[in-house]
C-alpha cells in the first residue's frame, strides 16, 4: 500500500503532464483542470490500497476514462447549445483576463530569442497535436510522452499492439507533415536544444 507521501510525490510528478495532455484532448483549460483533479481524487479514493508502482497505469486509465466521460457529457450539452443557439445568446468566451494566468513558472534564464522561437514552435506542435484524431493522439501521448511500451499502450487503449503501432506511425507522420509544412523539420526541432 502506498503512503500519502508517495501518492503526493507521484501526483506532483505527473500533474503537469496530465494537465497538458488533457488540454490537448479537450481544448479547454478549465475543463482540463477539472478532469485532472477528478482523476487525482478517484485514484486516491478507489486505489488507496494499491502499491505506488501501479499508480502510473491506473492514473492514466482513470484520466482517459474521465476524458471520455467529459466528451459524453459535452456531446449532450452541445446538442442543447445548438438547439438554443438560435436565440442568439452572447459569446461567453471573453472572460476577464487575470495576470496570474500569463505568468509562467520556470521560464526565465534563457535567451529571449530562443524562448520566442520555442514558444512559436510549441504553438505549432500543440495545434498539430490537437488536430490529430483522438485515438492517434492518445497512442502518441501514451507511447512517446508517457514512455509506455507498445504492450502497455495497447492494454491502456484496449486494442491490439498492431493498432497501437499503426496509430503511432500515423500520428508521427501527420505531425511531421504539419511541422514540415511550417518549416520545422526534425533537425529544426532537435536544434531547439531539448533533451529527448
Amino acid at each position: 500500500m502506498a503512503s500519502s507521501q508517495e501518492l503526493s510525490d507521484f501526483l506532483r510528478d505527473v500533474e503537469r503532464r496530465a494537465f497538458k495532455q488533457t488540454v490537448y484532448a479537450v481544448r479547454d483549460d478549465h475543463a482540463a483542470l477539472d478532469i485532472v483533479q477528478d482523476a487525482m481524487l478517484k485514484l486516491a479514493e478507489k486505489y488507496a490500497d494499491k502499491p505506488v508502482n501501479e499508480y502510473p497505469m491506473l492514473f492514466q486509465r482513470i484520466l482517459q476514462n474521465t476524458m471520455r466521460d467529459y466528451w459524453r457529457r459535452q456531446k449532450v450539452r452541445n446538442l442543447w447549445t445548438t438547439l438554443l443557439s438560435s436565440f442568439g445568446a452572447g459569446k461567453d468566451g471573453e472572460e476577464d483576463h487575470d495576470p496570474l494566468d500569463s505568468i509562467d513558472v520556470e521560464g526565465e534564464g534563457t535567451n529571449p530569442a530562443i524562448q520566442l522561437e520555442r514558444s512559436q514552435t510549441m504553438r505549432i506542435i500543440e495545434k498539430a497535436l490537437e488536430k490529430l484524431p483522438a485515438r492517434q493522439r492518445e497512442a502518441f501521448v501514451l507511447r512517446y510522452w508517457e514512455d509506455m511500451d507498445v504492450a502497455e499502450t495497447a492494454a491502456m487503449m484496449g486494442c491490439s499492439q498492431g493498432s497501437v503501432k499503426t496509430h503511432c506511425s500515423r500520428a508521427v507522420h501527420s505531425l511531421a507533415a504539419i511541422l514540415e509544412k511550417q518549416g520545422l523539420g526534425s533537425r529544426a526541432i532537435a536544434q531547439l536544444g531539448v533533451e529527448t
Partner: protein
Amino acid sequence: MNIDNLQESEIDTQSIDLQAKQIAGLLDAHAKRLSMRTLKQLENGRARAVKVHAQQISGVSVNHDGTLSSISAWADHHRIASTGLVLVAIIAGFVIMQSLNHRESSDAFLLGADLPPEAFVDRGFEPFLNHSQAKL
C-alpha cells in the same frame, strides 16, 4: 531484396521513434511552464487527493455532507445494508408468525379443556393438583 526491405522498415521505425521522442521532449519541457494559477489549482487538487487517501488508509471517510464516518460501518455499504434489512424483516416475520400460531393453539387448548380458564390463571391450582395426585 527482403533483407533490404526489412532494413528500410527498421530504419523508418527508428526515425519515427526519434522524431516522436523529439516532439514528446518539447511537449514535456513545455508542460513544465504552466501559469501560477494552474499550478496552484493542481496543487489544491493534489492536496485534496492526498487528504482523501490519508482518510482511506486510516479507515475514516468523509460523507457528502462533510461528516466523518467509518469505512467499516456496514450501513455505508448500501447493498449490505439493504440485504441486512430484508433478512431482519424475514426473521421478524417468522418470529411473529410463530408467536401467533402458539397463541392460537393455546387459545384452542384453553377453550377445549374440561377446566374453566380461571383455573389456569390461578397459581395455586397446579400445586394443588400435584398434591392431590401424590395423596392418591
